[in-house]
């Protein structure tokens, strides 16, 4: 391994650094807070030729992703980034990219949705688009963000997967926070991530039909293949992480991460940066003899249902903390966790859904302690609890 460089970067700058190392051919993006500094850095890199890519200035997010789909359809490696309303504006193209099996990689800065208008972080943007056929992963810090960008191309472009991938960073809390990051060498990334080669492209020597119509007789067959591809991504993600760990010395735990779940009675399940606030609280309560634990979901699609069952089945009570609500029911992460537990062969633990952090509302260590206390209290019939 070539020596890595230590740098002090924001989450957005770490993403841009990761994109440069992955050598995309085409970048098409439209600026939106809090994503903007990613594409500003990339534009600077293309300008100073430290990144040899075509940077397309487009007039909207809809066009940004459309341009990436078009470029991917001639075999180019592509990158785009967006946030919030911009992601929603891409919505129809998200399905085109996944249905066409174009492995576009996108960074999304998680931000609330209007109205009331707000630029701060929550996860309602990406979670509301869970069904668009993309692989979805949530980072906890800048290092993981950078590493995920490099891994994303290896996962998305794998012939068994060929599915676009969305890397989510909590707006401001990750995107605008500066921290120590280890920057891999270009030589190592080149060795880890060879150039994108695909047969799923427009090619004069091997002409084929792309992005076509399929009527009722065939359409579902394509959707089944798409589903199988995302399911099989679970295995590819673990393989890519293992290869990444061997080369770069940083090991990732697959679709989810557990902390002290082996004997935990009370477990918080969450995703994104707030897991970092839970960690020291779990350590503190453990030192006081409390049997508490943490599950950090990394991938929402493919969903780690077996891993969720294994981690949670022995607990007395589980709280799912998420920055999301599906109005009129419950948080979407909670629905997914609940569904995984329903398939357990044992009586599932008591489940509570903690909804917080909407529109950037702070979640403090004291708040997390209160959530563990709440899990220890007897069932009061409430399921969805706003914190």
């Amino acid at each position, binding site marked *: 391994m070539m020596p890595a460089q230590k740098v002090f970067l924001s989450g957005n700058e770490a993403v841009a650094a990761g994109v440069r190392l992955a050598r995309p051919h085409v970048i098409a993006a439209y600026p939106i807070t809090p994503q903007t500094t990613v594409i500003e850095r990339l534009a600077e890199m293309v300008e100073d030729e430290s990144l040899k890519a075509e940077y397309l200035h487009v007039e909207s997010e809809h066009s940004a992703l459309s341009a990436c789909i078009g470029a991917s359809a001639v075999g180019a490696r592509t990158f785009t980034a967006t946030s919030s309303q911009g992601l929603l504006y891409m919505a129809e193209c998200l399905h085109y990219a996944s249905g066409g099996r174009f492995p576009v990689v996108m960074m999304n800065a998680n931000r609330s949705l209007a109205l009331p208008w707000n630029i701060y972080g929550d996860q309602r943007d990406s979670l509301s688009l869970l069904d668009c056929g993309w692989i979805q992963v949530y980072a906890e810090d800048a290092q993981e963000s950078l590493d995920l960008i490099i891994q994303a191309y290896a996962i998305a472009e794998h012939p068994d997967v060929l599915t676009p991938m969305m890397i989510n960073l909590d707006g401001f809390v990750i995107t605008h*926070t500066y*921290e120590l990051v280890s920057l891999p060498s270009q030589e190592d990334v080149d060795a880890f991530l060879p150039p994108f080669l695909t047969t799923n492209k427009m090619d004069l020597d091997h002409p084929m039909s792309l992005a076509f119509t399929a009527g009722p007789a065939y359409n579902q067959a394509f959707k089944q293949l798409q589903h199988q591809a995302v399911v099989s991504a679970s295995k590819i993600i673990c393989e890519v992480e293992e290869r990444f760990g061997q080369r770069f010395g940083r090991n990732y735990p697959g679709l989810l991460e557990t902390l002290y779940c082996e004997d935990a009675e009370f477990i918080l399940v969450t995703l994104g940066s707030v897991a970092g606030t839970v960690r020291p609280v779990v350590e503190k309560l453990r030192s006081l003899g409390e049997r508490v634990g943490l599950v950090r979901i990394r991938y929402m699609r493919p969903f780690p249902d077996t891993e969720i069952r294994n981690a949670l089945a022995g607990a007395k009570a589980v709280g799912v903390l998420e920055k999301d609500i599906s109005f009129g029911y419950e948080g979407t992460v909670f629905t997914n966790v609940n569904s995984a537990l329903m398939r357990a062969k044992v009586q599932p633990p008591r489940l509570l859904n903690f909804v917080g952090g909407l529109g950037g509302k702070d979640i403090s260590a004291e708040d997390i302690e209160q959530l563990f206390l709440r899990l220890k209290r007897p069932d009061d019939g409430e399921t969805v609890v706003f914190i």
Partner: protein
Amino acid sequence: MVEIRFHGRGGQGAFTAARLLGVAVTLFENRHALAFPSFGPERRGSPVLGFIRIDDRKIADRSSITRCNVVVVLDDTLLDAQVFSGLQAGGLLLVNTACNELPLSIPDHVRTVIVDATALARQYLGRPLANTAMLGALSALSEVVTLQSLLAAVRQEMKGSSAEKNALLLEETYKTLGGQWQ
């Protein structure tokens, strides 16, 4: 864990001070830091905050900084009771002002130090930009960071004559505040 809040106005470099301090302690002292601005729109002249958490271990908690050990005020027109918010017992309030007294009643538990960093910045930079000077003062008055690490950070992050002028400003402010040249 040390937590510091910088108060400034947009354009005075409050967040740049936090970020430079982060570069100094992470890249030149092998520690960890999270540095972040007050999130939201940036407007020149409006009150802004910069924050930093520093620890010997990787820092996981990214919630808002509500308690702090040091408060650095870059602009004395921002002085009001808010600057004491969350400042812990034995905490340091470091104020850039040309006045000899602060227009505030200082709580007993706070140690206050005044420095005319803008005058020093005018002298050494030719501009009233006091953020690096205040880092020099912080280094002289606390164990948060060494002058050497700050100088290395400034030379890495700034270019050409700006780097050298800011390095000189840092050193001179450090000495003015009684820091011992090592």
